[in-house]
């Protein structure tokens, strides 16, 4: 870097550090701003940050390398990322990617020599009902077609600013197809807080308890119990965190809630704050939803003006609470609550050992409630309508409704809200799915069900889901699906523990080897034991579930794997002769000793 650039960079870092009050917990936000300005985090910035925040350089580099949207080498002035989710692939993502790369003269993951553009894959962008989707300089683009790709190429090559791109590229629909309890009722802003102030925090917590509300992120922990634990936990500060790091492939309901029901979500957070005694809250918004940041910040400002946030909320003396939005930087694992808290603290998103749980030792070691977007929206509605209103719907152990994000092979993908207890069959009829191979409920870490199981029901007793509901018709290959999920986990492993970091990559390689017809019976034995090892020995939920797609299909459809095996003892999983090509070129040799047979005869 030229010395003027170094000076400019140092000055920029200086202003950022000043703005963020020299606070190391703001590291990720600072790095995001640097990334935006320089398209990477230059070495000069790392040096300046290390000395001024008194952090080791390795800590800063570690954070940059952890998050997919931060880079140590420059990305293109236009950084195009296409969603790698199975649903995007089913809509033709790969040929669009090839097309785009060819027309721009760029290889995936490698910035073009002139620095103008880079194209790469990214994990599910949460736009599965309007894919193939992607991100251009962090902003979501939807419904990509070869026509759109053709229009995009000159825009990039001629340096047309993003603001002047056709607005239809960035159009995002809610696609709410079925509304029930939650999506039908949209309480007036402030209504839940008025109910809270009228009835008191204790009575309201009892009301939430009466509703039977359980966490909507997938695990289903009782919400009132979580809030009570946190409230009773000792600490000089308490925090509320809304988990909007909706990263499970196939899930996009939080995006819609934050687009059209954000007031209600913020109200749920404020409610929780009053009950647990928090003065500060965070919305952890996944980086892919960056386009929502500005509208959400505007909404927070409006709520402050209306007296729904800030000091003495709705005139109640001492009811002080405000919300800050923290934008993620591309890491699925940050959807895990303790990893999310680490990320909020400006660190790599590595899940903590639990216990202690965040309710007693969360953000900065203080008692913290982390709830899903949908849970908080439901809490606000319960405050207005009462616990009985909610508990009257659903089943014995799963009260209320669940919002599903439906995508894949169906006529009407989108958002569907159903009472718990609804049979899968009814859902398929509503969204127009027929001739199915099966449904993946709960995303890659969830469960695959076959047509014979469509009488099973939505609920914590039977099929729990954070919202992902992916439909596959009979033309799809189960191994393609399993392969996509396995690649996803290998990419998203946080790298902290060896069984998951190394295991998911080995699992991916072995599966690919078998899938491409180069595997042998020994590889299958190896794959089985590897899956068990990853499941048993990993540090967190990602590792515990990463092998599920393979384990489940190996158990239920062993033929799928066995019919691809070669009847030989062993074949290397890489191209042996191809591995000599570089050396052949360097030495100019092509004699028989300069070649290798793939299989030993």
């Amino acid at each position: 870097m030229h010395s003027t650039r170094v000076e400019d960079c140092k000055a920029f870092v200086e202003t950022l550090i000043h703005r963020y009050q020299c606070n190391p917990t703001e590291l990720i936000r600072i790095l995001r701003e640097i990334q935006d300005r320089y398209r990477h985090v230059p070495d000069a910035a790392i040096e300046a940050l290390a000395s001024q925040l008194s952090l080791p350089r390795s800590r800063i580099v570690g954070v940059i390398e952890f998050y997919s949207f931060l880079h140590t080498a420059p990305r293109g002035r236009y950084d195009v990322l296409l969603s790698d989710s199975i649903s995007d692939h089913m809509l033709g993502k790969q040929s669009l990617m090839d097309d785009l790369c060819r027309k721009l003269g760029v290889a995936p993951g490698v910035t073009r020599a002139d620095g103008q553009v880079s194209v790469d894959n990214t994990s599910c962008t949460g736009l599965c009902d309007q894919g193939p989707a992607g991100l251009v300089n962090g902003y979501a683009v939807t419904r990509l077609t070869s026509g759109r790709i053709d229009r995009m190429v000159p825009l990039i090559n001629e340096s047309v600013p993003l603001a002047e791109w056709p607005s239809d590229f960035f159009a995002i629909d809610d696609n709410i197809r079925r509304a029930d309890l939650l999506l039908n009722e949209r309480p007036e802003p402030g209504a839940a807080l008025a109910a809270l102030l009228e009835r008191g925090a204790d009575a309201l917590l009892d009301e939430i308890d009466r509703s039977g509300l359980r966490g909507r992120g997938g695990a289903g922990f009782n919400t009132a119990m979580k809030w009570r634990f946190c409230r009773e936990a000792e600490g000089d500060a308490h925090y509320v965190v809304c988990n909007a790091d909706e990263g499970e492939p196939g899930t996009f309901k939080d995006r819609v809630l934050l687009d059209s029901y954000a007031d209600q979500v913020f109200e749920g957070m404020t409610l929780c704050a009053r009950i647990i005694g928090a003065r500060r809250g965070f919305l952890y918004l996944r980086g892919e939803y960056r386009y929502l940041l500005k509208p959400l910040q505007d909404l927070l400002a409006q709520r402050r003006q209306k007296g729904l946030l800030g000091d003495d909320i709705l005139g109640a003396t001492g009811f002080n609470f405000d919300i800050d939005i923290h934008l993620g930087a591309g890491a699925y694992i940050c959807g895990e609550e303790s990893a999310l808290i680490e990320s909020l603290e400006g660190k790599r998103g590595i899940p903590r050992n639990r216990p202690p749980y965040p309710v007693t030792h969360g953000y900065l070691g203080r008692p913290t409630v982390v709830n899903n977007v949908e849970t908080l929206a439901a809490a606000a509605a319960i405050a207005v309508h009462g616990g009985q209103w909610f508990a009257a719907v659903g089943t014995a152990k799963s009260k209320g409704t669940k919002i599903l994000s439906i995508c894949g092979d169906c006529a009407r993908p989108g958002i569907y809200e159903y009472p718990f207890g609804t049979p899968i069959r009814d859902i398929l009829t509503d969204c127009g799915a027929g001739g199915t191979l099966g449904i993946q409920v709960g995303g890659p870490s969830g469960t695959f069900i076959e047509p014979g199981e469509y009488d099973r029901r939505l609920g914590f007793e039977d099929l729990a889901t954070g919202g992902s509901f992916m439909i596959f018709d009979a033309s799809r290959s189960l191994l393609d699906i399993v392969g996509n999920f396995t690649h996803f986990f290998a990419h998203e492993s946080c790298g902290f523990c060896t069984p998951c970091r190394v295991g998911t990559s080995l699992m991916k390689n072995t599966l690919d080897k078998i899938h491409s017809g180069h595997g042998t019976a020994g590889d299958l034995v190896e794959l089985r034991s590897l899956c068990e090892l990853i499941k048993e020995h990993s540090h967190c939920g990602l590792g515990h579930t990463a092998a599920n797609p393979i384990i489940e299909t190996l158990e239920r459809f062993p033929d799928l794997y066995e019919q691809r095996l070669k009847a030989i003892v062993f074949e290397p999983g890489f191209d042996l002769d191809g591995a000599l090509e570089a050396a052949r070129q360097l030495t100019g040799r092509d004699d028989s000793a300069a070649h290798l047979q793939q299989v030993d005869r």
Partner: protein
Amino acid sequence: MSEKLRIATTSLAGCFGCHMSLLDIDERLLELVEVAEFDRSPLTDIKHCGPCDIGLIEGGVCNAENVHVLREFRQNCKTLVAMGACAINGGIPALRNSIDLRECLTEAYIDGIGVQNPQIPNDPELPLLLDKVHPIQEVVSVDYFLPGCPPSADTIWKFLTDLIAGREPSLPPELVHYD
């Protein structure tokens, strides 16, 4: 015992440290040669492997010759063992895997400090390098993995005596615990 077991050993992309550790079983070597004899091995200088019971492989696979030697061992040895970190993971030689082969060789033979008569060696006698160093189980199937850098003499001894006695080899934690 009517006939002795046959053991073959080789070092591919390794440092011979594992072989030094094998010698480090000291006087137990005498016990070993009571029940076993060595086929192809740096200890015997036999050039090609005949039918064997046990093959011990040190080092990963970095070039075409390594592939041929490894395959010869696999064809001849009933039980093939990856001995030490490099055979199991590629080890130190695999540190070059993140560097392009051209860069590697250019640095070593063209641009390096003090290089005279710069050229990349291309004699047909020399085995060509693979673009990456691979653990041996990526090239042939492997029956056992003996961890350590190198595995200690006691580890090698425990492993071999188990195997020779017909027991499933099992290493107690103190032999595979390194801190």
